């Protein structure tokens, strides 16, 4: 006599997740306990989402879910079902042209080892969507959500200010065109 229930444990502990990732539809079946970090790195191949503290503290895994910054390490994959997810891989244009945020971080030396940079870029993206011209205090408050062990933060703050300038200039160019 089998002790197995009619539903196998694989089925019982699996969940279907459908969402939009960097503008493209995704559909996966993942364990119920899979995090967004598992989903993006292992099932979607987005290695720009970094695993570090796994406690929602360091922000290296920051991605955007419906425009808001989220720690992928501390969010279950089932919670992004039906949402719009963005990772650092979706920032640059199809032809490789860097986004304003990426260009600013490069210009201002906003990274050294680069491990935290994808999270910093996503946090910057979310901030500039909410406030295209943030004051330094607000930038400081946002950036303090994430940890950088190399730069000392000053150049990251400058990078975010520069990103706001570049994004504004880009928008004005588009309007004048």
């Amino acid at each position, binding site marked *: 006599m089998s002790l197995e229930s009619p539903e196998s444990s694989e089925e*019982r502990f699996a969940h279907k997740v459908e969402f939009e990732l960097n503008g493209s539809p995704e559909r996966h079946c993942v364990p119920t306990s899979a*995090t967004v970090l598992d989903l993006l790195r292992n099932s979607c191949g987005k290695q720009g989402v970094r695993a570090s503290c*796994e406690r929602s503290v360091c922000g290296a895994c920051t991605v955007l879910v419906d425009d808001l910054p*989220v*720690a992928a390490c501390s*969010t*279950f994959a089932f919670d992004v079902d039906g949402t719009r997810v963005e990772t650092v891989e979706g920032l640059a244009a199809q032809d490789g042209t860097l986004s304003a945020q990426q260009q600013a971080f490069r210009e201002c030396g906003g990274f050294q080892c680069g491990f935290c940079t994808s999270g910093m870029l996503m*946090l910057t993206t979310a901030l500039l969507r909410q406030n295209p011209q943030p004051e330094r205090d607000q930038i400081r408050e946002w950036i*303090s959500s994430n940890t950088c062990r190399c730069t000392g933060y000053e150049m990251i703050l400058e990078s975010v200010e520069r990103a706001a300038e570049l994004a504004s200039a880009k928008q004005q160019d588009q309007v004048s065109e």
Partner: protein
Amino acid sequence: MRGQKLGAGLIAQSQSALPPFTLHRPTSLGEAVALSRQHPKAVIAAGCSDLVAQFREGLEPEVLISVQRIKELRAIKNDAGVLRIGSMVSHAEASRSHEVLSSVPALAAAWGSIATVRIRYRGTLGGNLLSRRYRYEMPVILSALGGQMLFQGGDVEALPISSLWDRDSLWDRNLGNVGILTAVTVDTASLLWFGYERSMRPVSTVSLAVRKDPVAGLTVSAVCGSEYRQPFLLSHTAEATDITELDPVSVGGVLAVQLPDEAGDYAGSIDYRRHLVGVLCRRLLAEATGNKGKEG
């Protein structure tokens, strides 16, 4: 499925080691209540910021009920002198809510100052309270305001937030099932003033509320929080009719001396902590009474 034996350490080897569970995602409170009755040992999940950390610390539930999709748990109302905040309201939503801003503006300001921007968007009121972590700030903030937690589907209907730390309570002795936390209520009708001091966090934080006493006088309720010890409730009833009659120095002293010896820890002796809490209470009371010169 777990890659590391339970109890072998606080941190799992990797994110892949989280144990799987049977998942339920109800879309109505009625459905969630029925599920919680059917699975009394189920874990109720909200924003999950803390819950995932609990998994990494060894939590292995068989059933998880996610209340993310229940819209009625996201409501904020302010009716007849009672502010009611749904348990699924995020910290960011609460700190910007018109109802909170218009009824207790200092509560909105305090709420918007906790954690980080990223956590404020994801973390919820219910998760912050029921994770029962000493270092979390909403129990400290809302206990001083006399906040009440409302439940459905369990053995209790309401509990004061301060009961989260009661000894011999159902929390520590598994005396019952609380069911689903639906909302927190705060009586705003008798509230005269509220403020929160977190400049000395993590050593000490203080939230302080002044209310009209139902019988006579004014009641000052302060809650002292810290990183390493449970929050402690301090209280004083003064024979005053107006908030400006309160003396920040004497009331601050009366409150600080109530801090029990167990509030002392490796970050500060009890003498230091009483001194610090006295200073923070005086600072808040000076602001409450409009007499900055009486901070002491």
